[in-house]
């Protein structure tokens, strides 16, 4: 009995998306060549850099497309993922793990990068294996794999922008994959699937679309995030939006009103947690009484300001986006909040 992720499943995964703002992504000849070969079994190299492995753990939680589907059966009808390299699950270790990597990269493969890439000291801050007695830095491996990959998915905020690993003063000089490719002149398309960690659907849905129609079929925003999942703000879809508009704000955790004063970053965070919910539709942040901390934004966390201080909406938000009626109230509230936390690094 095989559960297939059909086009219908994908459409469900991507529910709520509109492509109104979509930039056309890329035309990438390598992928077309592969589709022409009607590759059924897509080798995947999943590489972990400067991160916490939380993205991998999040993907293990995928449902109803299960991790068993991803590892053993099908991702989309007739297409298998062959996960050749993944440090947390692979049987191979040491030399064998390096061999699995070298063997896979001789043919076509999709690259998934988890974690940021530390540039400092030639990559000394993250080494990912050893060959001939020398440590191999992440920079060297991604610099070699990137140009050969048919597509790259940067999973998580660290791989997308450096994320928490790049929190100022960014000791390891950590960057995301897209920035790394830019610096190295690598032209393989990168799709960012940020989130700290990302929802498993955001990754599985993106992967499914890449497998079905190629990376160029994925419509993304200017941060290279698929619009299907990151097209609207949390604030736009928030069940507490009514109390925001009515100027009713929770002062302590556990109160039912809008969480803006407790630091909610929903107004500047693009994600669909509120309709998708987390962990097999169990909960999501605001439903659990906690503010959105903005984990799906590339600025998270080091450039979004203190987590439990209100953000200054007068500067960061287009008034139209939060609703004209609320705008005046927000400016008032923000002014008060900013006064309260004067001397705070604003983080912008």
């Amino acid at each position, binding site marked *: 009995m095989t559960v297939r992720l059909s086009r219908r499943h994908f459409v469900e995964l991507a529910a709520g998306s509109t492509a109104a703002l979509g930039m056309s992504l890329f035309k990438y000849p390598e992928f077309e060549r592969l589709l022409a070969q009607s590759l059924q079994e897509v080798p995947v190299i999943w590489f972990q*850099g400067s991160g916490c492995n939380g993205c991998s753990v999040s993907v293990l939680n995928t449902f109803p497309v299960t991790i068993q589907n991803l590892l*053993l059966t099908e991702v989309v009808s007739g297409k298998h993922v062959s*996960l*050749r390299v993944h440090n947390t699950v692979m049987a*191979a*270790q040491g030399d064998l793990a390096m061999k699995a990597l070298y063997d896979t990269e001789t043919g076509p493969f999709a690259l998934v990068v988890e974690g940021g890439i530390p540039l400092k000291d030639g990559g000394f*801050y993250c080494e990912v294996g050893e060959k001939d007695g020398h440590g191999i830095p992440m920079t060297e491996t991604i610099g070699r794999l990137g140009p050969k990959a048919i597509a790259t998915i940067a999973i998580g905020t660290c791989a997308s922008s450096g994320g928490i690993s790049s929190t100022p003063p960014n000791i390891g000089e950590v960057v995301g994959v897209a920035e790394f490719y830019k610096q190295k002149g690598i032209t393989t398309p990168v799709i960012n699937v940020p989130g700290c960690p990302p929802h498993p659907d955001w990754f599985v849905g993106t992967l499914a679309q890449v497998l079905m129609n190629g990376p160029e079929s994925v419509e993304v925003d200017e941060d290279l995030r698929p619009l299907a999942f990151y097209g609207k703000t949390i604030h736009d879809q928030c069940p507490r939006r009514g109390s925001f508009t009515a100027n009713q704000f929770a002062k*302590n955790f556990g109160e039912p009103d809008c969480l803006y004063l407790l630091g909610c970053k929903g107004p500047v965070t693009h994600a669909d947690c509120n309709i998708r919910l987390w962990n097999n539709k169990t909960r999501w942040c605001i439903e*659990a009484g906690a503010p959105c901390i903005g984990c799906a934004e590339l600025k998270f966390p080091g450039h979004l300001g203190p987590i439990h201080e209100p953000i200054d909406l007068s500067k960061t938000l287009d008034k139209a986006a939060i609703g004209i009626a609320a705008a005046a109230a927000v400016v008032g509230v923000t002014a008060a909040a900013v006064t309260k936390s004067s001397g705070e690094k604003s983080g912008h």
Partner: protein
Amino acid sequence: MGTIVIDPISRIEGHLKIEVVVENGVVKDAHSSGTLFRGFEIFMKGHNPTDAQHYTQRICGVCPVSHGVTSVLNLDSAFGIADKIPANGRIIRNLIQAGNTIQSHILHFYHLAALDYVDVTAAADYSGSDPGLIKVRDFIGRALAAGNTAMLGPFFPRYEGDYRLPKAINQKAVADYVKALDMRRLAHEMTAIYFGRIPHGPGLVVGGVTQGPTADNIQLYRQKLTVLRDFIDNVYLPDVIAVAEVYADHFEQGFGCGKVLSYGVFDFDSNADLTKRKRFQPQGVATASLSLSAMDPRSITEDVKYSRFSTPSAYPGDGDTKDDPHKTGAYTWLKAPRYKGGVHEVGPMPRMLVAYLSGDAAVKKMVDDTLAHFKAPPSVLFSTLGRHAARALECKLVADAADKWLDELKPGEPFNVPFEIPDEAEGMGLWEAPRGALGHWISIKDKKIDRYQCVVPSTWDCSPRDDKDQPGPIEQSLIGAKVKDEANPFEVVRIVRAYDPCLACAVHLVRPNGDVIGQFRVA
């Protein structure tokens, strides 16, 4: 004599390299090193103290809950409200931790450790009706039909040779590997009820939690817990026993440093002094000769003689972290935590041993029954299989207890207390991650983090030599180990993995420079 370098060690969390020197089939020397540095303790300086619980969760994607709880305990103490946490808040924190501990232990046994013992190819000619085994069989069949063993990733390549399970047990273990993927996911769903989501949940807060109990969420947690308890009793524990029976020589491998430490975990009261709190699993220090003593956190130091830090060896509450990549004589960036100057192991086995020696009747019965089954003395807990068995028993203990904790929740009553960030303060949070003792220390100045230090489980277990040149617990476990086949060093990776190392957690780690480590080699 040869040196075996295993880099990367896979199926752990994070980046780890193990280097052992083998002479006549016996390990003569061993070095463990991590290969990633992120610098949390440095970049958290100047942040709001309340950022800490969110930032430190992101040290580790496998045990974010433990960092979250340790961090809020640390802040509770610094903010002067540690004794004000309402019962609902205390219990819900315990339930959030319990869910992740269960998840972590199932993940560790089946998905991280089992592939060193279980032969996946046993599923190739399966003819029964188990859905998981059918999936694996068809997966293998596809690769064979295509004549391409690379399609067997991530299960191949692997070390070859020492897979000893009889076919029926082997097939059952493969089926349970597949089933356990659902079970660990379910444990996460259970955790998310109160944590908001996982990994990296928002549901913990200084003073308590963000969400109170309701009849509804209690029932939901219990439903999932019931399924998990059934799996632990009827699948996980029997599988561990079945593997141990066949690999019984691994009760004699990997003894280690012979001393253990536990901070204790799962609060039963809100005493302002964390070392006086009554906890479900108690605090203490114990030895392989079964002596037990009280734990005094002031006796913890982090040694840096061989670590690339310019900051001195110190008690973590006074310590600091400043990298010094070219420090003379240093061979790693991992600090070496020590207790009263001695090497100590942390983790499920240490917790179980401390509880056993503290006279916990349930733990004593559980451990004694298991030891009787193998006709072994308690000292075999200090071994590769002893560590696996202790972890499985602990999983049952925690799951059974969590069911009772649900009954103590009181819907409608408070679940947190308001707080003020103090101008100046010091705090300490002591707790246990699934992998062992976890401590956070904070100093606050001008309402900002002035110093934040974390001493994490894998820093204890994977630690390098200390100021007195004593090797760390894993290094000691490896030294003296018998290796039958240097090309397939099963014994080495089994010893290492039994500790469940978690290297992203080891916040001080950086890979040592290859040239420098050479001078410590016995070659």
